[in-house]
């Protein structure tokens, strides 16, 4: 049997109600109780993902994007982490109210996660075949032999060459790109409804990044999964995402369909991010940078958290926290899926 034949052997995309979101995060708060005080990592995040949809969560380090993902997966270290309020609805059920055992059953089989660094996320002393097969043994109670056969299938599916003889190799014997494929295979094993990819390409070099993202996008289409792509790389997002949520200091500051965001950002922070991408037509000029540092989560600025770094900040920004406004055209026509948490979104988008 060759690799190609096996790839074709995949199940039909599952039929589902496309309108109801698969996962909905409502007003999620996460804080960490440290010796220096309470660090508020996530402050009221709302987002939703439907089957077959890709949501990109964009933000710099410390913006709370990974913590939100960990809260969804239920792998937050508690304590020191704490979820004082919020809901995480998976198919309408609040996962925060479930028992530990119920959540464990969802992890891996319904919602799976792909981690940033595949080398450290794979157990160095277990063969990749064992680790892939473990998914079936834990969730479906298959025998060792059946699990290994399934592991070979999976490796074929993520296009690892010569899967059959590599199944007993150890993670360190694979290249970086191949390891990330194995992580993807693990997440895919039980054909989950939703995959959360936490910076899946950050540890890879640029040529491999594209391959891995293509593979991920292709498999997502094939299985009609929801995908939450967490990243700080605007380039990665542009090709694969359907919609984008930009996070800053634990809040979503802007949401938009992917093309719209690049064309017309409606939040000064997003604009700053886009302006700081090097461009060929601005060769020789100084590259724009957002001034200042991301806020200390122990002391988040009052009002809009971005105000100390914002070129357009006024007194209003220093006192009032802006809500996520619905963004409209100049004539008042609604722009679907667009929102901006800026008092001056109109000026930002329409100039």
């Amino acid at each position, binding site marked *: 049997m*060759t690799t190609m034949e096996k790839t074709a052997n995949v199940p039909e995309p599952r039929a589902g109600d496309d309108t109801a979101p698969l996962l909905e995060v409502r007003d999620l708060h996460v804080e960490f109780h440290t010796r220096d005080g309470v660090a508020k990592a996530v402050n009221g995040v709302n987002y939703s993902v439907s089957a077959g949809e890709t949501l990109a969560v964009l933000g710099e380090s410390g913006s709370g994007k990974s913590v939100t993902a960990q809260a969804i*997966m239920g*792998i937050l270290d508690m304590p020191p982490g704490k979820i004082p309020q919020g809901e995480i609805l998976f198919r309408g059920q609040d996962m925060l109210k479930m028992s530990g055992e119920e959540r*464990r*059953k*969802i*992890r*891996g*089989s319904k919602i*799976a*996660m792909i*981690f940033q*660094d595949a080398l*450290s*996320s*794979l*157990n*160095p*002393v*277990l*063969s990749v075949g064992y680790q892939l097969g*473990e*998914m079936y043994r*834990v*969730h479906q109670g298959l025998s060792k032999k059946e699990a290994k056969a399934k592991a070979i299938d999976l490796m074929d599916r993520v296009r690892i*060459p*010569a899967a*059959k*003889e590599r*199944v*007993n190799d*150890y993670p*360190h014997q694979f290249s970086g790109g191949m390891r990330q494929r194995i*992580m993807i295979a*693990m*997440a895919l094993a039980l054909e989950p409804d939703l995959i959360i990819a936490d910076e899946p390409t950050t540890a890879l070099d640029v040529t491999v990044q594209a391959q891995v993202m293509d593979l991920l996008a292709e498999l997502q289409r094939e299985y009609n999964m929801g995908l939450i792509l967490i990243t700080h790389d605007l380039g990665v997002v542009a090709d694969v995402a359907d919609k984008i949520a930009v996070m800053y200091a634990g809040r979503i500051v802007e949401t938009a369909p992917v093309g719209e965001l690049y064309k017309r950002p409606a939040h000064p922070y997003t604009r700053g991010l886009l302006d700081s991408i090097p461009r060929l037509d601005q060769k020789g000029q100084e590259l724009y940078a957002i001034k200042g540092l991301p806020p200390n989560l122990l002391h988040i600025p009052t009002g809009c958290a971005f105000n100390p770094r914002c070129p357009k900040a006024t007194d209003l920004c220093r006192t009032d926290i802006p809500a996520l406004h619905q963004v409209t055209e100049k004539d008042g026509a609604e722009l679907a899926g667009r929102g901006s948490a800026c008092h001056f979104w109109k000026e930002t988008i329409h100039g």
Partner: protein
Amino acid sequence: MPEKTSPEAGRSTVAAAVVGAAELTEATIKTQGQNKPRSLGQDAWRELRGSWLFWASGVLLVIFIVMAAFPTLFTDVDPRQADLRGHYLAPPNWSHFFQGDWFGYNGQGQSVYARTVHGARASIIVGVCVTIAVTVFGGLVGMLAGYFGGWVDGLLSRITDIFFGIPLLLGGLTLLQAFTHRTVWTVTLGLATFGWMQIARVMRGAVITQKQADFVTAARALGAGTGRILFRHILPNVLGPVIVVATIALGGYISTEATLSYLGIGLQDPVVSWGVDISAAQSQLRDAPHVLLVPATFLSLTVLAFILLGDAVRDALDPKLR
């Protein structure tokens, strides 16, 4: 399939490595498939085969273990048979290999050679059993403390600290003097009771390091339960240091057993053990040093062999060195 198949299979492996994965034919995949899969154990074995430390310590240990299991293979002289006539502290007769008078006679007129051969059993049983008990118990305590942290760690670590305050020898002495009739098993109990803390600490530290590893988070994210994470993911990663500490400690337990016997609180006559013999030989050290030196040499060699083995095994088990 055994590793050594036909020379043809070996050649195709080399060929396959050269032509690269893209050009693998089905035939080479098959032969490779038979040659290549190797578990951690097989890899460790491959590594061990090339280590002279392993062979030196291994040969010594095999000799001692066979000696412990089947002492009559080495001598047919009864180690308890005492015949003082012409034998009192008789010096070794080096030309009589494997005979009763090879290593001379002790103050009771007993064959030192026969007693040394028969003494291996008590020492090795005590050493191995204490090590197993200590590794299982200490390992469990360390794992629970390290993995769960919080009050579990607090409680278990304080208990460990309390036991750490009691020296192994003093604890063993105190506990064992409560038994009037002491066998190999009471000595094992005595040593295990006061010997598990080091393993517990090593285990706790290793588990704390490993539980923060990304692959533990990943295993959790993919739905593994606590038991599976502890025993399937963390345990294999922490076994290395624990095996090394345990093997080295094994030598220590054997010598502690000898010390206890020397002090008259460990094994007693009529049990034949190296410690008992060393203890009995001390008064005649100047007249007949061989009575002391022979069992002492065997004791040292056993301890050394275990320590060297621990070292060799550590190198072989480390997946990062492969």
